[in-house]
């Protein structure tokens, strides 16, 4: 359903093989494989602590591997050869700095890269992106003073400002109001229809239910499902598994 079989020699966008990651003394990923092909919209699902955010961070090169390999567009992730094609929206960003930056300043940091350390202060792309996410009137507002949904839209504009062909997002809908959820889902659909590859960590399929081409489900650092979203194992049918984990999966979950 999701893999374009006719384009055999094309490099996968993401190619993670036997990834093992240990954080502190805890093994978070146990030999995980993940492949994402061009044009796919892949959802990464799993309970809290299942390792989905960790897997995402290894995919974008923010976290190193103990063993295994992670390649982005055919290049070793740690060498950042393909960063220009990558747009990343981390979880709960914009809360780290202590001086409130404006939306425009925050989005402009998306223009930086391994060999691009001097962004132009008034890049037209920054304003265009802010207008795309419906925030052109708030360009000079501090991001910290915005609602969860507006903040997330700033983060998405920051990820998109360099014109990536691959978008990676960590729970883009968490803490986001309904209106922003729909606007953000609309942005994803538009990008996907134009051929942008998307890998997204989600609590539940929600707004994107009909658009997702493949679901990868993690449990305790292992992939337990990789295929059509309709066939994924139900963790707790009818309920948000984050809130009510079933005993078999949830024995050691902390929330």
């Amino acid at each position: 359903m999701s893999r374009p079989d006719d384009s055999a020699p094309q490099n996968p966008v993401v190619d993670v093989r036997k990834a093992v990651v240990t954080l502190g003394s805890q093994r978070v990923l146990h030999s995980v494989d993940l492949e994402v092909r061009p044009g796919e919209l892949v959802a990464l699902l799993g309970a809290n602590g299942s390792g989905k955010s960790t897997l995402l961070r290894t995919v974008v090169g923010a976290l190193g591997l103990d063993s295994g390999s992670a390649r982005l567009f055919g290049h070793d992730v740690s060498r950042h050869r393909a960063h220009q094609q990558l747009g990343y929206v981390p979880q709960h960003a914009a809360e780290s700095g202590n001086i409130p930056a404006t939306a425009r300043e925050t989005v402009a940091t998306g223009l930086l890269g391994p060999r691009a350390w001097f962004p132009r202060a008034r890049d037209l792309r920054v304003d265009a992106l802010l207008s795309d996410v419906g925030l052109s009137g708030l360009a000079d507002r501090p991001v910290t003073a915005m609602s969860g949904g507006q903040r997330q839209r700033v983060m998405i504009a920051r990820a998109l400002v360099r014109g990536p062909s691959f978008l990676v997002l960590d729970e883009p809908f968490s803490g986001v109001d309904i209106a922003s959820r729909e606007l953000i889902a609309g942005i994803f659909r538009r990008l996907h229809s134009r051929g942008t590859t998307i890998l997204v960590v989600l609590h539940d399929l929600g707004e994107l239910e009909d658009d997702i081409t493949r679901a990868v489900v993690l449990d305790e650092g292992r992939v337990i499902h990789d295929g059509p979203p309709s066939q994924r194992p139900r963790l707790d049918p009818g309920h948000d598994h984050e809130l009510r984990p079933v005993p078999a999966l949830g024995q050691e979950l902390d929330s």
Partner: protein
Amino acid sequence: MLTPWDLLTSDIMRYPLIIAVLIGLTAPIVGTYLVQRRLSLLGDGLGHVALTGVAMGWLVGAWVSTTPHDALAIPGALTASVLGALAIEYVREIGHTSRDVALAILFYGGIAGGVVIIQLAGGTSQNLMAYLFGSISTVTSSDLGITVVLAAIVLAVGIGLRGLLFAVTGDEEFARASGLPVRATNLLIVVIAALTVTLAMRIVGALMVSALMIVPVATAQTLVIGFNRTMRWAMMVGLVCSLGGLVLTAYVNLPPGGVIVLLAIGMYAVGVAVRAVRERVRAHRAQEVEAPA
């Protein structure tokens, strides 16, 4: 009565005035990044470590009989504060000790080392006073030379690489995914902090250096929004404080470091008051808009 021209042309004040301008501009630049990274007290720790460096410089100077006796004090302070900065960043990175404990060890170790080593060098802790609290009477032309070079480095890095430093201090995770040199940038920030401590300690004093890094930033934050504007306003506040404080001490016999820092705190208080008034006015206007409806 001294005119400003007399001040500029007097031999005693010319060097300190140049240094004051450089301190006033550089300290708030570094302070902006430190506040952004929640490392406001780093400058304080480095000031303490610099004291050990001053005493080490003194000790080496005594061995090789330099004249004056403390000719190597500033190079010593520079070496010690840079090493201290690298140690702090290393501790932060490996994350075994919490950051505030590491800073505390740096504080006390630095000051204890200074007091003990100065005695070994044949001096007394009295000799450290000028470095602890700042002084203008002892600024030599070689001090000026070192200060100008250090300030030029801090300005070039702090302003020239502003985009990179802002991106890394603002969101390290995103910076990593963008392929930015996060580790090198973090090191660069603590190293320019160490350079600033060294160049500022002669006039402001090791115990008060950090105030000139942090208080102008806090003042700017009461008045403006945005990272770049905060930095620009902090530089203006820093310049006004350091120059104003120094000029004041030419007329009134007061220690420059203390006067500069009190001026900065005074400006912060004014900033807080201005913000409070502004918020009142804004709330009042909002009420007026609502009332007719």
